[in-house]
């Protein structure tokens, strides 16, 4: 897998999402839970806006000095016995990891949840060299068994219900119990325990790397990261190059924002940290540790108007409030990064060609911007994308270009504008019935497919005003 998850065209994906009643029900109720949880936690904290401000400051300070902190991070990791590899591309990252796995002659690799390894398609690379790769996050494991891509960045299997999960376990793992969450989870636990014990290599993602100590921190609720980071002797952490903070103190602020914004928790059940290899006096930790820092298009975003998109701490608060996401689901975005942040990041990381519709898949309601705990102006960045698509990429439809040229002439010429206020009503007359258009022509058709359009009034405001000024009440 890579960033893009299918070849289906945009309209088809949207239609498929809208027609999936079960998925929409699941997404809608999850959004409600997450959103209320976030609001409750924000209120309990009291000064949420101050926290957001602090979060934004930490992220923007880090990004502005990213060269310094990446250097510090790599020095600290190496000081503590780890190896650091800077991968410019997905291929470079995969090749490096493949070589570590090959060198260990590893048969089995266990992983924690990691969006960046989805992004670079790591599992496929490792499977091609014959290694068995096991996802140990419950949601990711379900999707792996089902060969289904994630539809959400925090709860990847959000689109599935327990009956579907039970069926997957039955078909793929011979499960023969009920669809109660307890029995399903208990089965997953037994299965995964064997994998933890027999794995040769553990691969983790990274929520926050801490530059001052060369540590990688993972935020989970299932404890699977504890197993992945304490059992196999060889450990590899993979991080997007922006996913670091200067200090532990900064990490504490961002984790507080992350868990609250993501799922409405004060703290997750587990915060796991890996710092280099096992020291002589320590009883656990890896003998061999690698940190792979992935660029894959990120450094091209630095210094542009999109830099703050790299502030993202992957909490999905924007996804959880997005009405578009609610109705079409994650897969419709055709990216492992769905929702508003996905619509911003995906064209940046994977180009406009395959993703040129995404920046328009938003009513610009700005619920995302308001929810973001690190204050990324998401809806504004969607407008910036549209500007690039129109003015640089020249990918907007010809009919739209003509309309907008006409718009500019109309709106910059008061005489033309005034004329339009006079003729609008008669122009729509052929389609008007009882003061409404129910089946409109041209661009109005999309509108009238779902709702009626009011006919322009019998007189414009300005004509009423002029009559009133002349002394005759209109």
């Amino acid at each position: 897998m890579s960033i893009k998850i299918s070849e289906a065209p945009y309209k088809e994906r949207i239609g498929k999402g809208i027609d999936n009643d079960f998925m929409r029900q699941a997404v809608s109720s999850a959004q409600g839970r997450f959103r209320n949880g976030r609001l409750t936690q924000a209120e309990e904290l009291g000064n949420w806006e101050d926290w957001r401000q602090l979060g934004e400051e930490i992220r923007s300070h880090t990004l502005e000095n990213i060269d310094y902190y990446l250097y510090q991070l790599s020095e600290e990791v190496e000081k503590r016995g780890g190896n650091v590899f800077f991968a410019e591309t997905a291929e470079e990252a995969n090749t490096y990891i493949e070589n570590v796995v090959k060198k260990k002659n590893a048969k089995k690799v266990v992983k924690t949840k990691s969006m960046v390894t989805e992004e670079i398609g790591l599992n496929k690379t490792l499977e091609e060299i014959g290694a068995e790769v096991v996802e140990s996050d419950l949601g990711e494991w379900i999707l792996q068994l089902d060969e289904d891509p994630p539809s959400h960045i925090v709860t990847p299997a959000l689109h599935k219900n327990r009956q579907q999960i039970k069926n997957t376990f039955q078909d793929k793992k011979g499960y023969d119990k009920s669809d109660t969450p307890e029995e399903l989870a208990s089965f997953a636990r037994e299965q995964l325990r064997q994998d933890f014990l027999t794995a040769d290599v553990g691969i983790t993602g990274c929520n926050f790397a801490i530059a001052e100590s060369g540590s990688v921190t993972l935020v989970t609720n299932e404890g699977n990261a504890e197993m992945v980071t304490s059992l196999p002797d060889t450990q590899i952490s993979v991080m997007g190059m922006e996913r670091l903070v200067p200090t532990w103190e900064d990490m504490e602020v961002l984790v507080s924002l992350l868990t609250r914004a993501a799922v409405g928790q004060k703290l997750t059940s587990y915060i796991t940290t890996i710092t280099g290899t096992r020291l002589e006096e320590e009883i656990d930790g890896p003998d061999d540790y690698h940190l792979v820092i992935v660029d894959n298009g990120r450094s091209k975003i630095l210094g542009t108007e999109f830099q703050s998109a790299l502030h993202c701490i992957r909490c999905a608060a924007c996804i959880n409030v997005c009405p578009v996401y609610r109705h079409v689901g994650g897969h419709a975005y055709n990216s492992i990064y769905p929702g508003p942040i996905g619509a911003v990041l995906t064209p940046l990381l994977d180009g406009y060609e395959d993703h040129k519709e995404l920046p328009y898949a938003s009513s610009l309601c700005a619920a995302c911007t308001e929810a973001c705990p690190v204050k990324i102006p998401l809806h504004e960045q969607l407008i910036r994308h549209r500007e690039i698509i129109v003015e640089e990429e020249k990918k907007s439809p010809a009919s739209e270009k003509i309309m907008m040229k006409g718009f500019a002439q109309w709106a910059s010429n008061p005489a033309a504008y005034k004329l339009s206020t006079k003729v609008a009503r008669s122009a729509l007359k052929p389609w008007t019935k009882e003061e409404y258009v129910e089946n409109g022509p041209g661009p109005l058709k999309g509108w009238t497919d779902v709702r009626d359009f009011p006919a322009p009034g019998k007189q414009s405001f300005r004509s009423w005003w002029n009559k009133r000024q002349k002394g005759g009440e209109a």
Partner: protein
Amino acid sequence: MKVSLFITCVSDIVFADVGKNTVELLERLGCEVDFPAAQTCCGQPAYNSGYLSEAKKAMKQMIKAFKDSEYVVGPSGSCVGMLREYPNVLKGDPEWEQPAIDLANKSYEVTQFIVDVLGITDVGSTFEGRVTYHPSCHMTRILGVKEAPTKLLKNVKGIDFVELPVKEDCCGFGGTFAVKNADISGEMVKEKSRHVSETEAEYLVGGDMGCLMNIGGRMRREGKNVKVMHITEILNTHVKEQGGVTA
């Protein structure tokens, strides 16, 4: 106080009553209202679609039209929000940046103007009926006006005000979004229409005709008997019935 009405193109062409109510309301509250005839559209359809140079042409026309105004007041959170965005759009333009800042600084949405500038929270109107209010996204999140409209509504005599469930959710209008992504927009407005029905309100009130045109159009399609009104219509009701009352 001298106020220039920024009518917005939608209300100028489609909903003239919104302008009439705004003018009458402001006059009743002691303002002297004028209407600069050179005004057109704020440019938002082009700006939000990524047509920056086209949008700037509209913006410059609007800046010229309101050059001499003391206050610019409009019956739309979204369109006024656009005016307030002009300084960011025209930043660095030696000729237009300062005029853009000037316009942004004197522009207000009508309820915002009444509450924040005139300092009035009870406009002395009377309205009988069960009313719910949709706080449009651009009014609340772009312009940052969250309380003024409901403050004014709740002080209307005789009103039976009921909160709209999940009121902060977008109705699916989004300007060109409603046409370009009509499928998604349709699902959003269906959901909003369901929420309006849950309130059992007879009137849906809002501060942005784009959103009201969208929700109202959907409810009409569904055969629902809910009357859609711009907030100034309710705030101006008293005047019409009593033939003009001064504040």
